[in-house]
């Protein structure tokens, strides 16, 4: 029987579990790199930017409105391309809209992305051409309605798998991704306002959002790791070591720097503009690094049989056998066997 390896873990007594020659139990996610991390990143950035654009429009901030609409539309387009390119059969991408399935985060996500991309593109087209500004405003609000879900659902996308480093933090991932989206969106708009030389009135809201987003992203990442720390089998190592660990450390450094820099973006004159552009770039890059870290953590976790066995054994020892009873979505009945007796 394969090797018996020792399980690391602080909360559970040391235990040894066998494995089948150390081979993985789970399949490695086949999602392409960088397509999927890139999609997670632009989805968050575009989603947050759409809300910024709508509120900038409502409060009379033309530079932010324009920047927000363009980033939302560009992000939606780039995200759609990345998603289609990730498919094994790209020519069948329309099959994504064949059914509406609340049990599938990717189905729900497709139904969020499609209207978001349509509305954001319409708003951006109106912005660029100046045609039908009223309809552009309406489309902008439409995009803003789908933007926040677009930023947070991707957390569910990763968490709704059997991969321990993703599934076990299913409460934290959507929050981390929404916060990371806020930081990236605010970062993109800081760059826009800085480069455009927009007045402080335009810069201030996104500087505030940048600081809040960076703080939330750092806090959510910390809480996520603490939850994984409590699991036996060294699941937290998936986020802390290897490629994921390097992305993670880079993400934190960039997000801290960007968050602090955004505090200076309110300064008058050129120094404020430079601070806005630099901190915005750091935050956007930090958000991208966070997505790469999350993606790589899942790959590492799926490859380690102890990540699967140790938490399940610990749960068996403390809570007894698992049950699937409990929280069913109504739509799930269509996917279950029919009782016959």
């Amino acid at each position, binding site marked *: 029987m394969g090797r018996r390896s020792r399980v690391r873990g602080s909360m559970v007594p040391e235990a040894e579990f*066998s494995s089948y020659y150390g081979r993985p139990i*789970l399949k490695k996610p086949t999602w392409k790199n960088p397509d999927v991390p890139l999609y997670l990143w632009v989805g968050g950035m575009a989603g947050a930017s759409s809300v910024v654009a709508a509120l900038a429009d409502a409060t009379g901030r033309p530079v932010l409105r324009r920047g927000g609409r363009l980033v939302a539309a560009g992000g939606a387009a780039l995200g759609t391309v990345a998603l289609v390119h990730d*498919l094994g059969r790209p020519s069948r991408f329309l099959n994504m809209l064949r059914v509406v399935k609340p*049990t599938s985060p990717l189905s729900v996500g497709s139904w969020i992305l499609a209207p978001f991309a349509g509305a954001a593109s319409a708003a951006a087209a109106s912005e660029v051409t100046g045609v039908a500004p009223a309809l552009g405003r309406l489309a902008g609000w439409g995009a803003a309605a789908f933007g926040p879900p677009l930023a947070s659902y991707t957390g569910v996308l990763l968490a709704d798998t059997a991969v321990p480093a993703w599934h076990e933090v299913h*409460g934290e991932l959507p929050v981390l991704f929404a916060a990371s989206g806020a930081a990236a969106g605010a970062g993109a708009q800081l760059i826009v306002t800085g480069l455009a030389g927009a007045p402080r009135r335009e810069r201030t809201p996104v500087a505030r959002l940048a600081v809040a987003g960076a703080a939330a992203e750092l806090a959510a990442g910390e809480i996520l790791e603490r939850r994984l720390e409590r699991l036996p089998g060294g699941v937290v190592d998936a986020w802390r070591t290897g490629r994921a660990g390097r992305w993670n450390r880079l993400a934190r450094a960039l997000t801290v720097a960007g968050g602090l820099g955004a505090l200076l973006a309110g300064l008058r004159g050129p120094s404020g503009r430079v601070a806005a552009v630099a901190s915005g770039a750091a935050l956007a890059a930090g958000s991208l690094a966070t997505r790469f870290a999350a993606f790589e953590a899942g790959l590492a976790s799926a490859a380690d049989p102890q990540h699967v066995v140790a938490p399940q054994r610990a749960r068996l020892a403390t809570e007894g056998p698992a049950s699937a009873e409990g929280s069913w979505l109504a739509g799930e009945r269509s996917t279950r066997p029919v009782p016959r007796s």
Partner: protein
Amino acid sequence: MSGRPHHPADPAAGFAGNVGTPDTTPMTGQTERADWIGMPGERPPRLGFFTDTSVCIGCKACEVACKEWNLVPADAGPSGSGSTRMADLDLLGMSYDNTGDLGANSWRHVAFVESQHRTGPQKGDVRWLMSSDVCKHCTHAACLDVCPTGALMRTEFDTVYVQPDVCNGCGYCVPACPYGVIDIRPEDGRAFKCTLCYDRTKDGLTPACAQACPTESIQFGPLDELRERADRRLAQLHDRGVPEARLYGRHPDDGVGGDGAFFLLLDEPEAYGLPPDPVVTTRDLPAMWKRAALAAAGLAAAVAASFLGGS
């Protein structure tokens, strides 16, 4: 529709005499055309596999029969190239198992475990365990739940089937499976796994692996009958002094609602590369959606708040 097919109770038939009693083995029934092909409108029974690993001899006839019947290609990689060089033969170098795991091109996988007896009079002696693994056709199937196109469906036999003409290769089913069964075939782009020989069961035939199994380690039939048979076999083994025998995936109230393909194992599941207590990931999905909605609302509120106040 009547109950189970009639099996002549002839103890000399097949290998039944070696492995149990007419109560615990299917006897010669596997070669007969089944009776679940009833009248139109009649619902057939839930079909499944019971793999009794205590009689598996590791011959891999199931792997070969599956590949032959389902036209499953050779694994991608050097051996798929037709090369006969030793270095290209994909030998894993760990045991007599060179298949390694289930995947898009391996719908049956015979695990070969070499270890020692840990208890009993043979303690310390070498022990060989063999087990033919397969898709579990879960009651609560995560792959089916997360499939965004509806390509994964439940058949009239309540097996889980990928419709190859619908699958767009998104790959979500791959990390969703708690057993690591389904995978993408890279050169094709779509996901593949055991179909429980849907084309054969529709015609009342036994799946290729069960048909080929020389020891009736792989037993096929209506799931409720298989569960009764497995319970009797487990009791028989316990009576004969094999306390390590256990059923895996048998119970309808476990984390996946019971497996349509379940097993009798002679060691812990993880020794065979199986998760000890898997849970369908979508059990927690309602909580995840709530959290995502909350996070989205928080994001919108944070943006709105940042526009409040002076500039």
